[in-house]
């Protein structure tokens, strides 16, 4: 009677060899999940990688001379990196110079006093505050107005240290500024920050005629922020017939993230 194929010596030998082969690989694979062996695996791979990297760089140097395409590409890549950094610096300087030009234009037109400052840090998007590089030692006082461009209100000084100040932006949820709408007649209201980049102007008398696009400026009635600084434009009018007041949604005329140079205008009536 012939023997079944799996009972032959050859079949058993193959089974043993394959079993050992697969078994050892399985054990090694399972051992890689043991936490205290992980650093050993990582160490071996890192060491092999480090040695190979050295060998790879050495072979690359051996085969690549200065005229080879790879060497030329490396030189061009280095030059491109340097030129990119230079271009970025030139672009930043040009933007900053433009910001200063508009700020000095505002000073000359209004014959006002101001302290030039630079934004050195920005908060998380939820709190809308920035830090400027001027503080009490430079003459910054609380509730000073912060201006960008040609007379756009950026925020007010919230707190002052010796060398820096925290500025609360106009769109911050806790910001409240006495504002006016320049339309057919000057309308007084309170401009408050909202969640997001929009502002709301509340307590506008019901009979006021508002149109989309009206410019919202500071009224100067709070005695801290000068009159006539641009806050934004009316983008929506919210009116309830039974309510004594109406409100308006105000859109900012600037993107607060784009500015790095500001002008600090001291309060009209200094705090006691």
């Amino acid at each position, binding site marked *: 009677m012939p023997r079944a194929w799996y009972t032959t010596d050859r079949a058993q030998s193959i089974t043993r060899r*394959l079993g*050992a082969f697969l*078994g050892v690989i399985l054990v090694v694979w399972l051992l890689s999940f043991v936490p205290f062996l992980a650093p050993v695996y990582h160490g071996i791979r890192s060491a*092999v990688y480090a040695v190979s990297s050295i060998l*790879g760089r050495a072979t690359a140097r051996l085969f690549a001379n200065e005229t080879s395409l790879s060497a030329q590409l490396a030189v061009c890549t280095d030059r491109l990196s340097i030129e990119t950094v230079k271009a970025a610096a030139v672009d930043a300087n040009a933007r900053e110079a433009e910001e200063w030009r508009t700020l000095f234009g505002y000073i000359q037109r209004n014959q006002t006093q101001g302290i030039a400052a630079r934004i050195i840090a920005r908060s998380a998007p939820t709190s809308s505050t920035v830090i400027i590089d001027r503080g009490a030692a430079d003459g910054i006082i609380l509730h000073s107005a912060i201006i960008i461009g040609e007379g756009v209100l950026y925020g007010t000084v919230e707190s002052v240290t010796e060398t820096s100040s925290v500025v609360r932006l106009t769109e911050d949820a806790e910001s409240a500024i006495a504002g006016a709408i320049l339309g057919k007649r000057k309308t007084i209201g309170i401009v408050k920050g909202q969640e997001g980049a929009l502002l709301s102007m509340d307590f506008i008398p019901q009979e006021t005629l508002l149109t989309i696009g009206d410019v919202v400026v500071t009224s100067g009635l709070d005695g801290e922020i000068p009159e006539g600084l641009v806050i934004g434009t009316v983008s929506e009018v919210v009116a309830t017939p039974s309510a004594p007041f109406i409100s308006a949604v105000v859109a900012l005329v600037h993107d607060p993230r784009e500015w790095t140079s500001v002008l600090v205008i001291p309060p009209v009536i200094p705090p006691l």
Partner: protein
Amino acid sequence: MRGGILLALTFVILCVLQQSSLHALGTPWASIPLLVIAGIIVMQRVGVEEGIAWFLVVSVMYGFDLYAFFLAIVGPLFLLRVFTTRSVYALLGLGVVVHALAGTLAILTETLLHRFFELSFLVVYRTGTLAMQTLLIVPGLFVGVILIRFVERNILNRVYFRAS
């Protein structure tokens, strides 16, 4: 059994070299299919069954890679029917033909799977590396044969077989 353990340890060492060492060496060394070269040598010199197991493990290790799976299928066919001698030339022929055929089959299968079942594969990458690897596999197999002969004569014959 000792042969199986030795083969498994060789597999593990080659895995480490393939993933850590060759990638760090850069082009063209990174394209050398070390595990495939070793698998073809194993299939010819150690045994067809070991070769099939080798490629199946490679396939599983790389996420059920179709290329290694096809190597496990077409490798034994060509070894047992076409390149039946154990010469170096047969090994080189086996390596080139099997590699090119398995690579082509894998690309076709992946393209069809992508066409009809919208499964994504790195077909473009594989097409680009297939030609390069076909060129690299010849010197790789040649060096591999020299190494395996050296190991057989100077290490295995003196240590392993004497110990067993």
